[in-house]
């Protein structure tokens, strides 16, 4: 006997948020040029019902982390460590157990709004597919649930019958978000959910996600390179650099009192919230690029771009360790006060280019 719509909604609403614990997660892609260590031994926890921000420039391994949490990486990727969902290790699950946690426990909003829906199926059928893969309901009941989700993201129910190409980019991303919440998964992974959209749409979509998260009390891992979005959305933030977490802690503390020079540099690259009357600081970008992950530097991975690097930085790889309320991976966290002041000056970063 399949479930009624009311029974489905009741059972979904009573789902608790998920606790995520990532332990020693490493990912190595084998490529024709050799192994690429995209993620090196990272650790973090997401408390039930909280939002966790993962920040870093493009190519630092954010999507690789997200995909490994759902085991979506290609066969060329070797994944090590543990991904515990309420204590159960996703990486150790067999096929059946894995299929069962996908979408019911972890749902995903991918990076590209344009390509994340199958062009040859209606949007409604794709949402229905996600529901009926896991719960025994009729097509009509699943469709009613899809209508409910569409209403939640502000899309008219009739449009469920349309194909993705009939939607604008913003609408597609809202449809993907509607699909992500179709089974009210305890953990949402949002991988740069707004990058493919124009700035106005970005704000709309982000506040939509925030609202829903607050209302439904879900856990979330939010990947972005936008510090402002993180400060508005996430209780906790981790800053990634070249496959490592270099700084992590309560968002407010990390952003107000950074210990890692990379975090300081990242903040310079974004317009900061400032007190009344304070003059607008220039946007400074960090010169240089990510190190080649085929041949990572022996010492600190940020060393080639770090304005404060020393002999020790070149020789030794710093470990993530607690400092105050946060954790940072830098040999010179004791000099953070001094670094913070210097980091505000453009000349510190050896860059003349002014983004604005």
């Amino acid at each position, binding site marked *: 006997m399949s479930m009624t719509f009311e029974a489905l909604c009741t059972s979904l609403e009573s789902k608790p948020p998920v606790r995520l614990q990532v332990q020693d997660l490493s990912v190595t892609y084998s490529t024709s040029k050799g192994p690429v260590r995209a993620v090196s031994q990272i650790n973090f926890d997401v408390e039930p019902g909280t939002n966790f921000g993962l920040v870093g420039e493009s190519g630092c391994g954010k999507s690789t982390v997200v*995909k490994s949490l*759902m085991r*979506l990486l*290609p*066969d060329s990727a070797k994944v090590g460590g543990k991904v515990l969902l309420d204590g159960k290790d996703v990486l150790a699950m067999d*096929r059946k157990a*894995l*299929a*069962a*946690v*996908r*979408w*019911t426990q972890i*749902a*995903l909003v*991918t*990076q*590209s709004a344009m*390509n*994340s*829906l*199958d*062009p*040859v*199926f*209606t949007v409604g059928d*794709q949402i229905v*597919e*996600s529901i009926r*893969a*896991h719960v025994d309901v009729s097509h009509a009941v699943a469709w009613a649930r899809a209508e409910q989700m569409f209403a939640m993201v502000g899309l008219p129910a009739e449009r469920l019958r349309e*194909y993705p*190409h009939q939607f604008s980019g913003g609408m597609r991303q809202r449809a*993907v978000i509607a*699909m992500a919440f179709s089974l009210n998964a305890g953990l949402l992974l949002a991988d740069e959910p707004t990058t493919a959209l124009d700035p106005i749409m970005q704000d709309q979509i982000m506040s939509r996600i925030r609202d829903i998260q607050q209302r439904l009390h879900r856990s979330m891992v939010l990947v972005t390179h936008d510090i402002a979005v993180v400060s508005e959305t996430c209780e906790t933030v981790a800053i990634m650099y070249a496959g490592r977490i270099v700084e992590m802690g309560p968002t407010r503390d990390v952003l107000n009192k950074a210990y890692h020079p990379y975090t300081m540099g990242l903040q310079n690259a974004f317009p900061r919230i400032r007190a009344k009357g304070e003059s607008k600081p220039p946007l400074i970008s960090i010169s240089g690029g990510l190190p080649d992950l085929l041949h990572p530097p022996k010492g600190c991975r940020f060393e080639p771009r770090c304005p404060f690097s020393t002999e020790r930085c070149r020789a030794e790889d710093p470990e993530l360790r607690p400092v105050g309320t946060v954790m940072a991976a830098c040999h010179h966290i004791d000099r953070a006060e001094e670094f913070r002041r210097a980091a505000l000056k453009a000349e510190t970063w050896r860059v003349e280019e002014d983004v604005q």
Partner: protein
Amino acid sequence: MRAYILRRLLQSMLVVFVVTTIMFFMFRVMPADPTTMFLEGGMTEEARQVLLEEWGLNGTLWEQYVRYMGNLLTGDFGNSFFYRKPAWDVLWPFIINTLWIAVPGLLLGAVIGSGLGMIVGWAPRGGKVERSGILLATIIRGAPSFVVGIMLLAIFSSWLNWVPGYGMGDPQGATGLMRYLNWDFAHHLILPLCAVIIFFIPENLLLMRSGVVEARTEDYIELVRAKGVSEGRVAWHAGRNSMLPLITWLFPALAETIAGIVVVEIVFSWPGVGRELVLAVVRQDYPVAQAAFFLMSIMIVLANLAADLTYSKLDPRVVYK
């Protein structure tokens, strides 16, 4: 949509008209007077004229052409020089024979080929399944088309002696549909049918595979997998998207396939329309050859039209105006 179909039908008719015209003149400018071939020596000039008239070979070339096209409109293809009866009456039994190997052959070839293509495309890259799949397809496609037929003959007919290797069998007085619905016919059918299927598999396999390989890295496939559906269902999404390029190729490729079917008919002495066409050209039996080409051109334009319409059914992004 209706306007589109109408426009395409008109275009198709134009194509058929042009092809028919070209065929007509091509056969007329060929040297040799067919009457000399079929006439017993010592025929009077008068008798010869009568025959020429019967065959529509009297008058200027232009007059012949106008008469031929006019007759064509009424469904009259002219009389066969060789069989001395209407070309259509000559052809249609051969057409039926060809359909017996062509239709199931193409359908099974497409289904088996694209099914295998889906498996090979979905298999791990650089793995055993992928490598042997591609190798097999390339070998079959690379081999001259008669080789497969001859190998089938050698193995199953000459060596194992499981099936006959020649012709269509003897209906033994059976008429109508019963000519085909008997064990003897099926026994004769199986080998040429297999040859057509095998002939058709590689292209389907390779096209489907490349489509699936491309589709499997698409973001939407990742999201389908993330939804926790079965792996078969994920493959279906990839396959369903890969059907689009396959369809654009499949129907127009029927034209090429005709060549393959002719070869199969000749190798297996299957009395089909392809084999008959070759014989008609050799015999300079123009009406039969022209009629066969006419039917083929109709089939090809219809196949193209069918390809377009199927495509629009499969791909919601396509809108015809």
